[in-house]
């Protein structure tokens, strides 16, 4: 049986006040300090995914701090140096990734090990130990990481650079800036990152909603409350047309054009050898990037000559499938919901599904044109 897609929101309250006889599948709770917790019962999952999202709203990368968040992600994930060993010995694992708009730490544990996962993320939230030697060594590892960039990563970097330049720097960061990072500079970023409104926690797996919400909330409720400016972080961009990638500017995740662009981009990618569409869910203006993961040649003529009528039904199905695939696993579901929650608590994956449902052919054509040379 499919889980019931119900969502209960509680303003300024903990889950202990929300006991009901019939539980919905999902419970979202906003804490007094502005942080958010979303818990979802996924009875069929073989593990529980606990994901801590840290918004970059207060810590945007600048040329002088480019990569600080990435460097901190590496150092925070180490916690006290024993965390990974402890987790792996219990069949659990910690993942960490840095994106433009947020950083995410995920712990996957056995369904019976919820507390282990939550305690682990509480350790990740602490300011890591710092010294010039530690920073230098981590930078050497990040240098190795940057050398592994594949075609989609390089294409994405080039497209963002062309669209936004210094307004949306590559989240991997600049090694020179990272090497010159001081303990004080990193601490300042860390403190802002782990403040109330910049945090969201998702817990998805076989669990009791109220109990899991209470435990998860305890992790975040002590975070300090910082004033967080609202408003857009990025301005509008023009379509990007580079030899190996095209990028369509899209508005926030919940806007209709984003759903249409996802459908159009996925349909185009499905006609290309090794085609991909890169998009990180964002509640800001962002890019959807189309390219080939296998070829550095110019994009095939099929992109510009695509028959919209043929691609329309396929694009809708592919976009729906993209969302449903994400939501089918505890990890994918926690990631998509958390990525939106930490940026805009009202945004939901279902917004995109709704927009796909009502998408018309002309709307699809409009989105398709943004990827095509003739459409500019």
């Amino acid at each position, binding site marked *: *049986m*499919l889980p019931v897609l119900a969502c209960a929101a509680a303003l300024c309250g903990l889950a202990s006040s929300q006991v009901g006889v019939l539980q919905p599948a999902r419970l979202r709770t906003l804490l007094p300090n502005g942080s958010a917790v979303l818990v979802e019962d996924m009875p*069929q999952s*073989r*593990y529980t995914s606990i994901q801590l999202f840290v918004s970059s709203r207060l810590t945007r990368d600048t040329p002088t701090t480019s990569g600080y968040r990435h460097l901190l992600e590496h150092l925070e994930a180490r916690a006290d140096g024993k965390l*990974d*060993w402890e987790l*792996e*010995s*219990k*069949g*659990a*694992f*910690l993942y960490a990734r840095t994106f433009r708009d947020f950083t995410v730490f995920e712990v*996957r544990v*056995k369904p019976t090990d919820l507390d282990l996962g939550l305690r682990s993320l509480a350790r990740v939230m602490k300011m890591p130990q710092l010294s010039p030697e530690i920073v230098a*060594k981590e930078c*050497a*590892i*990040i*240098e*190795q*990481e940057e*050398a*592994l960039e*594949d*075609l989609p990563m390089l294409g994405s970097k080039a497209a963002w650079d062309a669209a936004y330049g210094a307004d949306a720097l590559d989240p991997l960061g600049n090694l020179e800036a990272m090497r010159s990072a001081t303990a004080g500079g990193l601490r300042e970023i860390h403190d802002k990152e782990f403040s109330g409104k910049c945090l969201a926690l998702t817990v998805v797996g076989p669990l009791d909603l109220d109990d899991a919400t209470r435990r998860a909330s305890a992790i975040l409720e002590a975070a300090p409350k910082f004033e967080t400016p609202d408003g857009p972080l990025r301005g509008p961009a023009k379509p990007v047309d580079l030899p190996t990638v095209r990028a369509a500017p899209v508005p926030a995740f919940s806007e209709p054009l984003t759903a249409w662009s996802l459908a159009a981009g996925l349909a185009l990618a*499905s006609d290309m*050898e*090794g085609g991909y569409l890169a998009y990180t869910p964002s509640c800001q203006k962002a890019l959807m990037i189309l390219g080939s993961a*296998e*070829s*550095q*040649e110019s994009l095939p003529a099929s992109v510009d000559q695509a028959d919209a009528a*043929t691609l329309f*039904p*396929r694009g809708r*199905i*592919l976009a*729906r*499938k993209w969302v*449903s695939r994400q939501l*089918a*696993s505890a990890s994918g579901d926690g990631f998509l919901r958390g990525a939106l929650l930490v940026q805009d608590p009202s945004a939901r994956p279902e917004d995109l599904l709704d927009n796909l449902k009502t998408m018309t052919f002309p709307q699809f054509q409009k989105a398709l044109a943004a990827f095509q040379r003739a459409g500019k």
Partner: protein
Amino acid sequence: MIALAVLLAAQSVAPPVRELPEPAARETSIEASVELPKLTDDQFAALAVVVRTIPKQTEEYIRRDMASITLGGQSPRCELTPDHIRIGIAMPPGDVRHGLGILESLVRRPSLFQDALNDSADSLATRRLGPWEMALQGRVSAFRITHDQAAAIMRYIFRPDRIYVAVGGQLEPGLAESEWERRTAGWAAPSRLEEFPRLHRPALPVQQPGPVSTLELRGKSFVSSDVAMSQRLLALMALGAGKGSSLFRISRETHAWSYRQEGVLWPVPGGWEPRLIALSANCPAPSEREGALRADMLQDVSAWTESDRARALGIADAVLNRGLEFSPMYLGQFGPMSASLDDQTFLSAYWPMKTGSTWDPERLLTEMRLCNLDDLKETATDLLQTAEPIG
């Protein structure tokens, strides 16, 4: 007597279809694993062209037809690895018949038009693999082949007795078996072995290695029926899976030589090769680092305690029971098996092909738990001491 012989020839020689029922699944997954014989590098390169061309069109289906039937309009997945070809089709829930129809058409009647074959060869030659994919695959040549050669390769490789099929998701029990039997009835394995066609064409220029070096210690291969399989896999996990592994701690944490490093159980015809791989940029002398890596890892293994064994068992539990991505079991083209329905369905087809027994992760895990610390250290030490440096 003659009548009986005719009857036997008409019966399917295909291995039984495995079923993996998941009533709550939102799709039906149809997976086939085609067993490969040992091939030369050139034969493998020619087969790669065929495999890339197969899903483009068959006698019954053009790509668009397939897209209109499959779930999400996806083309069938067709991947070549050193010991098998994987063909995967995602269908709407319960639609087993159409899915098996596409599969049967793909393995028996792909069109393999010359233009499509040339496109495949050219795209294989010009494709740019990432450093990890390059490290796994090594340098592979690319050929243009003729339609006749491709057809002969099909006859050589795709025989009913070599095709192992599994179906997962929403299923009607027994339907897949009877449907596949019906579709393959009369398709007999050839009485004499076809020959792989001769290849005359010059190789196309292919991607040169990039600035990232591969540090690799490649262990001796072992047969797929090896009685110590579970122990070898556990040793590989202790050496190379997870952030507590010896390889991670030494290559990345101690030396900062790499960001990505993993132990990989690499499939080869008839068995597996354990590989310890680290990618290292700005590496002036890979062979020196490989030597140091081996020495450091041997020293590390000698100091392993029950804690290392417990960590390896924890990783094994996460990999086999919960689909942790850091699995050394690289049975896909460039990545390990996951907990997804299609990967688990594929394993149900692949494992009997490879080992003659049913895929049973719990049994594998139970056997691993019987491996004591001394045996684990001995197996890991032997792997390291006999491994060849590749970089």
